[in-house]
Every structure is written in structure tokens, then in C-alpha cells.
């Protein structure tokens, strides 16, 4: 049971949140000009990173706001929590910090 520090509500149990997958993937504005492959990349492809991963969460049973999390997908340690639309903070990317 992860403890996620919602930027708007503070630390809460994982069960209050929903997961939104990889962060910083912008929806293409000119999808008409994309090839099938480029569109497929946006809709389906994933980094699926092993290690520090920038991902989206939403506080479903709380403020219902989306935000981003930098989390190690092996140790599950959360390195940073930051608002949607902002850049991730500088991270200490040592293995298993």
C-alpha cells in the first residue's frame, strides 16, 4: 500500500487514487497529419520504465485532481510529486535511492 503525497491534500493511502500511466505524453494537436504509426505511438506505446518513472495519478476519492509522480518502479519509492503541466524537479537518480 503506497503512501502518495497528494500535492493538494497531503499524504494518503494508495487506495484513494487512480493511476494514469506515463506522464508528459502530450496529445497531438495535428493528428490529421500523423501517420498511422505516429498515431499508434501516441495511443498505445509506452516507455514502461524499469526504474524512475514519471507517471500520472489522480486523487479519485479526494480532490479529484491530477498530478504527476516520479516513482521508482522497482523499489516503489516516490521521489517527487509535482503538478500537472510542470516539469519534473531535479531527481536523484541513483539506483534504489
Amino acid at each position, binding site marked *: 500500500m*503506497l503512501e502518495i503525497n497528494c500535492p493538494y491534500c497531503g499524504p494518503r493511502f494508495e487506495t484513494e487514487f487512480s*493511476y494514469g*500511466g506515463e506522464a508528459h505524453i502530450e496529445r497531438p494537436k495535428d493528428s490529421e497529419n500523423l501517420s498511422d504509426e505516429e498515431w*499508434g505511438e501516441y*495511443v*498505445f506505446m509506452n516507455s*514502461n520504465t*524499469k526504474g524512475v518513472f514519471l507517471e500520472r495519478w489522480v486523487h479519485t476519492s479526494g480532490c479529484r485532481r491530477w498530478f504527476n509522480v516520479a*516513482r521508482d*518502479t522497482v523499489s516503489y519509492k516516490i521521489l517527487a510529486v509535482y503538478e500537472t503541466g510542470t516539469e519534473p524537479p531535479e531527481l536523484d537518480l541513483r539506483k534504489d535511492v
Partner: protein
Amino acid sequence: MKSRYSIFSLMRNALSYHEKWPEAWRSPEPKSSYDVVIVGGGGHGLATAYYLAKVHGIRNVAVIERGWLGGGNTGRNTTIVRSNYLWDESAGLYEHAMKLWEGLSQELNYNVMFSQRGVMNLAHNQQDLRDIARRVNANRLNGIDSEFLTPHQIKDLVPIIDLRGNGRYPVLGASNQRRGGTARHDAVAWGYARRADEHGVDIIQECPVNGFEIENGKVTGVQTAKGLIKAKKVGVVVAGHSSVTAEMAGIRLPLVSHPLQALVSEPVKPVIDTVVMSNAIHAYISQSDKGELVIGAGVDKYVGYGQRGSLPVTEETLAAVCELFPSLKRMRMMRQWGGIVDTCPDASPIISKTPVDGFFINCGWGTGGFKATPGSGWVFADTIANDRPHPLNEAFSLERFNSGYLVDEHGAAAVAH
């Protein structure tokens, strides 16, 4: 030729205090090059190597495993085998696997304890019933045994079930595949390993892969902890680490890796003689030959490479089990664990060529790869040997995520497990 396993060889070896049994497989150092290197020593990888050697006569093959054989999802799943998938494409693949399962112990001369005790999927509401009817009909016309069970018939097969489900999840019916069941997961890896080895395949454990040699868009070798191994073709079948491994070859995949949980109870005398699955409440239960209740739970919702269980998923699953089987409330969980499953957007696998020549990938089985093991190995070997997809895995190409020809098994509510 290895000694054949049988009651007679057991008796003969008993006389020599079992001190003369040969190794089930060798543990050789890797050669400098192979015709085919299979990355991943799970059931799928070992089966691939076996069929490459046996069916296609390609014996200069190595299986490279980063840890121990069967240490990934092969040894971590809840061992359910069935083929009652909805879509024609899936039905073809899984039914091919089922037919191989039916002769596997004899084929491998290794008892994989394939137990055709039946697999039922419960319906808890009207839409479940429609979906089940659709799937049962489709299975039948695809030549797969499948039947609809009334609540009364379910109770006969599983006397400890509470059909009322406390009114919230009443059991309204089920689909049943009698030829489905369970198998001994470790034995599948070991049986294939032993046979593949017998056919000349080198099985190399404790050998992580660090990268691939690719020249002019064609794979030429695998960089491993034991040095560079040249290869004309490479097949990657590393459930749980598919994205990570494919990335070493510059290939992106549409996968999300999740921890999937399972647990077992303490062993008790038989109380449940079949496999019961309820997709609606995320509980899958059977009883192992040792007497443990083997319970499959859901996935943790986030990307995770930790092979460990978490509490919320256990709570949800066991609440459902207690609801369906109120007499099991006093049973006790003995062990819980996790595996890493690579889920695909359409809940169907990818068995495919890739943009890199000679580089093949077999992944995305989600929570349901074990049941496909023999079939997956069979078609993957054929695909690698002939450099083109076998008709049974044509639909499961990587290309489908561009063209849109998905084989959406969860959309059809046919459980993707």
C-alpha cells in the same frame, strides 16, 4: 539419449538408492555463436527452443536465462489452462496450445500433471450471461468444448459455493470448459528444458542479457554477462521484462508491466475439484494436488517491477472468495507473492517480427500466458524458423497497433486471464 522416466526406471533406480539418475539437463558454457538464441528461460522460451529443434531441425540453439529456469511468471502463476477464448484468432492459438497440453506429459516424458478438471467462469448479472452465451457459442463453432451451466449444475460441481452470493453477486450461470484445468507450472519448464537439452539445445542460466548487436538493421548477436554470443536470429520471450529488453534493440512496445498477485492457503483435504473464475469480482480459485487453495488476484494498478504482493489487492480478492465460499472464511493464507505481467492494450499477446531483421518478440500475455505455453512456443518457433508469422499468430503482430486490427479480448468480457 537420456534415461526414460517411467515406473520401471523409478524401480530400477530405487535399487541403486536413486544415485544413478542423470542430470535432467546440462549446464554448459555458451558457445560463441548459435543459429538462434532465445532470450528467456521460462516455459515459453524453453518450448520455443524445443520446437525449433524438434519440429524445424534447428538444433544449434541456446536459451539464455538471467536467473533460474522458470523463475519468472512460469513459476508464479495460478496454473490455469483453458482455451475458451472469444475471438477466432485467440481461439485458434489457445486451442492449439490445448491440444499440445493434452499430450504434453507423454511428448516430454515428464509428468506436467495436466489435470483436466474443468474451468468455469461465473456470470453474476444479465450482461455476464449474454457474454457467456456469446462465448460458449463461438467456442463451439471454433471446435472448442464449451458449455453453459445452470446454477444448479454449478452447485453440483462445486458444493461449497454460495449461489446467492449474499444477493450482491448471485451466481446466475457459468461457462464451463471440461478440457480446461490446471498443470504443474514448474514441471512445464523442467520438462521442456530436459527435452530441449536432449535435442542439443544449450540452456544457460544465470546469464543476464545486456544488449543486442545490430548491424544494418539486422541482429547479429546478444551481449550477455557471459560475453558476446553471436546469433543469426534472436527470439525474445521475457514476460515481465519485455519492454526493457526490446528497448535494448531500439523497439518500443505497447505494454504496461503490472505486479499480479496470487496466494495459497494451507493445504487441506479436497474441497474444490474444479477451477472457478469470477471476473466480476476478481477471484480465481482451484485446489492444488497438495491441497492448497490456489487463488489468483488482480493486478496492482501501477507500473511495477517488484515481484511482491500488496495488501489492498489481497483484501479485495479474499473478500470475494469469502463471499462466494462462506465456509472458506476460516482458511488461512500461507503464502502470497507477485509476478510481473506485461499487459497489452487489447489483452492479446504479441508474437511478431519486429523492425529489426532476425529479431522476434513474444510478449504481452498479460495475466494469461501460462495456458498458452506449448502453443506459444510452437508458433514462435515456426515464426523464427520461417521468418514469417505462422497462420495462428498472424493476427498477433506488432503492426496491429498501427493498423487498428486489435484482438480485443477484454472488450468482449471474455476474461483475459
